[in-house]
């Protein structure tokens, strides 16, 4: 394995360096670009289906194309509690305090903290 590492070419190493720097920078940029808010927005089939405050603990039941889906909000975080998709990836993702949970088979997207603040910012610019 040491020979393999030594036999890498200079372009190999430059490419590795570039990819690491670019993707780490991208992670921070994406974090910056994502506006903060205290809302949970649930989209079904690309249409907003439900908006709830992140502070308010509650359980939301929705119908998706793969059956009923249950979103739980508790102490500033949200999770998909129950879904009827085959591999349960969205349920396994667990609690999210800021970000996105996607259930591909059910075509459900849960935005946690931030999506509509961008619109509010635009409005601020108009009114203020």
């Amino acid at each position, binding site marked *: 394995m040491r020979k393999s590492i030594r036999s890498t070419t200079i372009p190999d190493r430059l490419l*590795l360096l570039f*990819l690491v720097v670019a993707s780490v920078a991208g*992670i921070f940029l994406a974090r910056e670009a994502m506006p903060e808010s205290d809302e949970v927005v649930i989209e079904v089939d*690309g249409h907003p289906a439900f908006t709830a405050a992140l502070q308010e603990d509650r359980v939301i039941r929705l119908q998706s194309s793969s059956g009923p889906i249950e979103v739980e909000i508790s102490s500033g975080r949200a999770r998909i509690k129950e879904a009827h998709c085959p591999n349960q990836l969205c349920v396994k993702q667990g609690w999210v305090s800021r970000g996105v949970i996607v259930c591909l088979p059910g075509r459900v997207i849960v935005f946690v903290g931030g999506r509509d603040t961008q619109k509010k910012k635009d409005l601020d610019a108009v009114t203020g």
Partner: protein
Amino acid sequence: MQLRDKQRIAVLSAYALALHGFEAILPMPVPWLRIGLANIITLVSLLLYDFRTALAVTVIRVTLASMFTGTFLGPSFILSLGGGLSSTAAMGLVHAASRNLFGPVGLSLVGSLFHNLAQLFLAWLLFVQRIGPVLIISPVILLIGTITGVVNGLISSLLIRQLTKENADNPADNSEL
């Protein structure tokens, strides 16, 4: 196509399928995370043989693996095939355009990058249809892909050195693979 080429593609595809299956049973911290071990076989096929062999091995591997797991023509098959084809095409083009510029590690990084770009694009086009979530997750996926790409490249490099050494030691026996 010669019979020997067919045998070679069959053996390489079997290796790729075995690695694909092995990877599926490895426990992963995040469910959608893949190391892409099968890409080692694609890369070795490209470097030891030619682009056609690498492409055939990739298509056979993706198709058969999806048939075995029952996801043929489903969403994960489309993502898998799109990623596999674009990564093989990108590695083939870069290899053909710059013979000695990139070693196995560089080519593996190119393959991993285009695999992920194609999958993110397909996921956006067919399933998510919103650019926001895709852009947020992209850098994370590309960073993980870079790490697994280096690992796969190093393994490929090791494998290629061993295989060419064996052939050099015993030139009569180079039809085995």
